[in-house]
Structures are given as structure tokens and as C-alpha cells.
């Protein structure tokens, strides 16, 4: 069982390290590529938590969809050849005060998490989660599922309408 712990710490290190690169890097392209490793690390945590379908969904939608979209956005809104690929930050005072506030928030959250008596109730081990997920989506969560499909349709139409060039 020790090997699972080692895998967890590996993914944790990967997530925290690459997320730091995302946030602190000056070059927005490096940030976009570091986001790839963060999302992969989160997918790894899903596997450790017995969420196989969710891990595959994470890789397909986040890495295959959202990340590609973000990289397209970076390339279309920055001058790659010029010097303008850097991303600016607010003034020094704002950055330091925001950093201090976020640090306090993080320490508070982690201490609350560690000092709470959680009611641990292990989920029964499942072979694969895809079958119960599909059954729940079409029974208990049917309305939310249909609403999500309408939302995605509206998002497609809205994004196409907004991004269209007005004068061709």
C-alpha cells in the first residue's frame, strides 16, 4: 500500500509545481503549457480516488478541449514574433497584499481541514463507475442533464455569434 502513497505525493508535487508555474510565470505560453501538467496531475488524483470515468473525461475535455482553446486564445491575442507575449501584473503593493491575503486564506483552510473530525465512510469499491454514472444521469439527474445540453447548445451559438467578425 506504500506505493499508492508515493504515487499520491508524485501527483501532488506535479500539481503544486506546475500550478505555481502557471501563476508565477511571466511568459503566458509557459503558463498555458504548465496548465497541461496541472490538469494531468488532477486526472491522476481522480484515478487514485477510484474515479476512472472522471479521469478520462478530465483528459478529454480539459486537455483536449479547454486547453487547446486557451492556447488558441493566447496565439490569437498576443504577438508571438514581437516582445508582447509577456503578461503584466498589477502594481507591487497589490501583488504583495493579494499574496498575503491568499496565503492567510490557504493556511486557514488547511488548518480547518486538519482540525475537523471528518465522518469517514469509505465508498464501496466498484469495478467501473461508468455504468452507475450513466444510470444516475438518466434517472435522478435527468433534468440537470437536459439543462446542461441546452446550456452547451446556447454556449456554442453564443460563442460563434460573439466571435464572428462584423465587417468582412
Amino acid at each position, binding site marked *: 500500500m506504500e506505493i499508492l502513497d508515493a504515487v499520491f505525493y508524485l501527483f501532488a508535487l506535479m500539481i503544486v509545481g506546475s500550478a505555481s508555474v502557471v501563476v508565477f510565470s511571466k511568459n503566458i505560453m509557459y503558463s498555458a503549457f504548465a496548465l497541461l501538467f496541472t490538469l494531468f496531475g488532477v486526472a491522476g488524483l481522480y484515478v487514485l*480516488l477510484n474515479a476512472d470515468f472522471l479521469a478520462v473525461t478530465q483528459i478529454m475535455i480539459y486537455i483536449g478541449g*479547454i486547453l487547446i482553446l486557451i492556447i488558441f486564445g493566447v496565439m490569437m491575442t498576443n504577438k508571438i514574433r514581437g516582445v508582447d507575449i509577456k503578461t503584466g501584473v498589477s502594481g507591487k503593493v497589490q501583488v504583495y497584499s493579494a499574496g498575503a491575503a491568499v496565503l492567510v486564506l490557504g493556511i486557514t483552510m488547511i488548518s480547518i481541514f486538519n482540525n475537523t473530525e471528518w465522518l469517514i465512510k469509505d465508498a464501496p469499491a466498484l469495478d467501473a463507475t461508468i455504468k*452507475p454514472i450513466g444510470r444516475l444521469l438518466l434517472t435522478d439527474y435527468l433534468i440537470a442533464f437536459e439543462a*446542461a445540453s441546452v446550456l452547451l447548445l446556447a*454556449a456554442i451559438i453564443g460563442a460563434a455569434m460573439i466571435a464572428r467578425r462584423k465587417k468582412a
Partner: protein
Amino acid sequence: MTVGLEGYLAISAILFCLGLFGVITRKNAIMVLMGLELILNSANINFVAFAKFGGMNIDGHIAAIFVIILAAAEAAVALAIVLNIFQNYKHVNIDEVDSLKE
């Protein structure tokens, strides 16, 4: 496995704080979007961790799936808006964008 619920919650707290810091301090609209993705991922880790350790079973997974759906829709619409801002302003610094039409 000795790493329990607290380990996953700690990772998600760190990820949330990093994402929040990015959202607050960056000027580039796409960097703000990336910070937002980090925050949504940290929420998802919590959902799945409670699904395993808190007895929520599959319901936690379904909440995480809906979060992923919303993130996809949000990214598509937000990037369309960012492209429009770039056409109008030739930059995407959100602190200098103060109107939607020229």
C-alpha cells in the same frame, strides 16, 4: 493507503489559493481564465474526494461532471469575448478595458 481525506483537501486548498492569486494579480484576460480553471479543478478534487471518503459515492462524480460541463461552456464564451476585446483594443489587459463598443 495512508493518505486520507485531509491530503486531498490540502492539495485542493493549495490549488484554490494559487488560482485565486492568479485571478487577482494578472492583467491578461487569458491568464485570469487559467486561474479560473485552477479554481474549478480544486473544487472538483473536493467533490471526488468526498465521493470516496464521505459516502457520497457516485453523486460526487456527477457533481464534478457538471462542473466540467460548465467550465467548457464558460471557456468557449469567455474566449469569444476576449477575441472581440482584442479586435477592438489590440490588447487584452482587463484593467484598461472599460467599454464594449468603440
